[in-house]
């Protein structure tokens, strides 16, 4: 049933990954940044599942599981930080956070 070839899957993952990365680069809102990180992690997980599908072994999916766990952890701490960020800097704009430089 898998007429889909490996590289198509990987290309899809790559595209999603790259879109996430561009979001990270351009959007100044911290929440969106966290979302973009989630997109990139999801794309990486997708790549792993595609790889697993190629070899027909469960390794890919196990790795996806771990990526999932890591993403969840990341979001939890990220959002907590976002709340703290808004309280101390007033806005969720990432560019405000440039007090330390030089």
């Amino acid at each position, binding site marked *: 049933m898998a007429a889909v070839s490996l590289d198509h899957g990987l290309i899809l993952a790559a595209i999603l990954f790259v879109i996430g990365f561009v979001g*990270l680069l351009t959007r100044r809102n911290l929440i969106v940044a966290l979302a973009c990180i989630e997109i990139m*992690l999801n794309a990486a*997980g997708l790549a792993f599942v*595609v*790889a697993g599908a190629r070899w027909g072994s469960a390794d*890919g999916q196990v*790795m996806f599981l771990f990526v999932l766990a890591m993403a969840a952890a990341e979001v939890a701490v990220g959002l907590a*930080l976002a709340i703290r960020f808004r309280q101390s800097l007033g806005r969720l704009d990432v560019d405000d956070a440039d007090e*330390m430089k030089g």
Partner: protein
Amino acid sequence: MTSGDLITLLPLIALTVTPVVVMLAAAFYRSHALALALTLVGLAATIVSLFVAATRTGRQVTPLLSFDTYALFYIGLLTVATAAVAILSWSYLQRRHVHPEEYYMLLLTATLGGAVLVASTHFASFFLGLEILSVSLYALIVYPIYRDQFVEAAVKYLVLAGATSAFLVFGMALVYAETGTMTASGLAPILSAGLGGQDVVVALGIVLILVGVGFKLAVVPFHMWTPDVYQGAPAPVGAYVATVSKGAVLALLLRYFWPVSLDTGSSLFLVFAAVAIASMVAGNLLALRQDNVKRILAYSSIANLGYLLVAFLAAGEQAAVAVTFFLVAYFATTLVAFGVVAALSTPERDAESMDDYRGLARTRRWTAVAFTVALFSLAGMPLTVGFMGKFYVVTAGAGAALWALIIVLVLTSTIGLYYYTRIVVAMWVRQPDENADAVGAAVGGGSAAVLAALTAFLIVFGVYPAPLIQLIERAVATLP
């Protein structure tokens, strides 16, 4: 998973149980002293378990981890470093009026992450170890919370760590897609081909993995976060990031690349060389006229990683010993340097600007002596273990005839002299300016002891490094 494996896993088990115990204790009775005591007991247990684990043969525990003497040595190193950071944090957190218990839990989980990284031979354990370490660090960096700098540093670290982890995983996926193996032993033949010609995907995968590794090691071009995080984070956490997180990742890199003898023509070698040179040059140049001591230490840690990469590239029989020895020296020196910064920091403001260190020799003589010894060790001056470390690195480099790299190392480390001595001048030559708010109270008992012990380590092994070298040689011998 046989019962024997459990004994081999003892160190990890100890490192897992300790944070849980600290958490339970905190649930019943919130006391800073109790938390620290439990942490130290846990770390001591880990070290004892190392010796127990060392007695068992048959080291590979599930494809994920392998506990050879190399891993055990590094776990020991990380544990000792964590213990030092914990004690240094005691006086730091004492005056911060913030719940200290979570700090120690996170410290222990981070060390667990490090331990997993050191022992990992599989992508899964590599990824998980890295993430446990990172996630624990997010909270540690922002721990005192009440100042914008902490939040800013944590956000930067989190976003960048998240992004680079995504690259890491994507790289792993590509490698797995092409080769089907995720273990270090499986990758060795591929790596030794130096990523030339045919399987471009694997090359792509490896490079993407290096992004994740590069971020953690803070080598150029992934070093941008370092100065801000070191400046923003509390001093003990800065020490932790500079030592344990970098050391663990480098140990893993060494394990993966140890069986691979990169020939100097291959593209991977050239990438590493370019990164090393860039780190050495940028690290030293950025710190040239820097007035913030924490940022100077950050840039100097970038430069030191550049030196480490030179030894890593040497890949001769000397390389592993050189890398490990330099790492041990780097650990001790950085802990002393950050320990002094932590000891002098006040709740209002960390002791980071150069003016805080004016005339320190007069006001607080022994701290100044410790900091001077650390700075001279960073600069690689004799009588300090830094000198032996740098000498060992240059020897390894010379052994592998990496002349270009060594000459860059030599020239950039003389630039380094300039900014290290600027601090020394501030401490010894300048007069303390009265109007500056007085630097922190006298150095607390615990951190004073740690600083004294580490400074002694710097000098003793600076003069007579032979026993340390023998220990490292025995540890490295077991690498495949």
